């Protein structure tokens, strides 16, 4: 029987070709592996630890600033100020998150009954354009549910587990939403990317500068009337007028989000 000895470099090339074929199959099937879900569960404590370090650092920073101001103003009350600083440090981060949450609920009182308030656990606004929130299927979060920040629409849920969910931001290159520009009759399609823009408008459409952009609901994911952002200067490219959009909600500053029920979830 002939013996086959595989060279290391050839084996590497063979495996790479196999991986490429496997990747093509994954693209066609579009399913997530159980391994990726398990990895998400393993990552949670590491993310929590990093959040604790980041939170501690910001609290120390705020505390140091508060302490120096207190010492300058009330030097003789140093001991009392120390105690106040400690409690202040603990409350500052909590307060910021609660404030964002209450603002969100106040802005959308009609949605408060069905919507889910969630904290942002981690975010990647540069590479994967996603953020992880601490509410999942067990809390009523469903796939494709719209996600709002205080200033406007952030994106939609694109992956959900029992206790957490992932938000695909509107800046994701694959993100899209049917939109309406206030003052323009035609409906357009907002597409994500480094510079989100509205396409599919009829050629030579007059797009007013800094006009409000709201969702129209035609794509069946986002309910109509949600604030998305403001327009830039529109230009006609080929068959369509294209207008850049400045998104209202900043994912980099958001700590609390409101997850709306997905279309069809609420009777």
């Amino acid at each position: 029987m002939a013996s086959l000895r595989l060279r290391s470099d050839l084996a590497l090339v063979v495996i790479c070709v196999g991986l490429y074929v496997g990747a093509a199959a994954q693209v066609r099937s579009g399913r997530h592996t159980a391994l990726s879900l398990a990895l998400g569960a393993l990552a949670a404590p590491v993310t929590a630890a990093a959040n604790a370090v980041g939170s501690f650092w910001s609290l120390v920073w705020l505390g140091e600033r508060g302490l120096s101001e207190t010492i300058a103003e009330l030097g003789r009350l140093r001991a009392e100020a120390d105690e106040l600083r400690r409690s202040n440090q603990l409350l500052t981060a909590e307060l910021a998150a609660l404030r964002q949450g209450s603002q969100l609920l106040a802005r959308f009182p009609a949605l408060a009954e069905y919507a889910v308030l969630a904290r942002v656990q981690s975010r990647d606004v540069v590479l994967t354009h996603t953020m992880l929130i601490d509410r999942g299927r067990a809390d009523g979060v469903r796939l494709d549910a719209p996600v709002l920040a205080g200033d406007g629409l952030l994106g939609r849920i694109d992956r959900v587990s029992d206790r957490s969910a992932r938000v695909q931001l509107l800046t994701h290159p694959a993100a899209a939403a049917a939109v309406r520009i206030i003052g323009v009759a035609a409906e357009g399609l907002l597409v994500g990317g480094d510079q989100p823009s509205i396409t599919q408008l009829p050629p030579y459409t007059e797009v007013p500068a800094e006009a409000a952009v709201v969702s129209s609901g035609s794509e069946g994911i986002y309910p109509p009337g949600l604030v998305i952002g403001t327009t830039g200067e529109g230009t006609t490219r080929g068959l369509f007028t294209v207008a850049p959009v400045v998104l209202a909600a900043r994912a980099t500053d958001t700590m609390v989000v409101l997850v709306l029920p997905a279309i069809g979830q609420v009777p």
Partner: protein
Amino acid sequence: MKLALAFLAALAAHFALRAAHLWWVLAAGQPLLLVVVAAARARPPVATAWMGLAVGLAIDLVSGRVIGPGGIAGAAAGAAVSLLVRRLELEGPLFWIVGSLAAAACSEGLWFALLSTLGVVPDHGWLGLAATVAMTAAIGLAVATVERGVRAWRSPERARRRLLKRL
């Protein structure tokens, strides 16, 4: 063994850098690629490419991407970095900075090319690519600084100086 520990540390750093309470720019870094750079120091190009393959697959897995293109890109990046390091005889801080820059640029560039052949929309654009290369190189710089510090701390000169002070 050291590389396995470095891999685990880099994996933890990958998740940690994406934490919501940290500066969002840090999320662009790919600390796992530095394991490939570390492997390139003592291993031949083929062995480094194997390490790159493992690291690339890990990046695909932890980023929730299609599994495969990252592995292929990582393998190519590992071979390229190993060849580059040998060709230019890089050592010290320059090894880490040029190595991480080359690993990130090669890995990201090939990843983009592979995804375009598969017809998949990449999860980031050119801005993300530039940010990844810059942040990975910045992490390489940080590693180089730490390594230099550790070497200085453990150097025989320092031990001699301390001994002379005691006399």
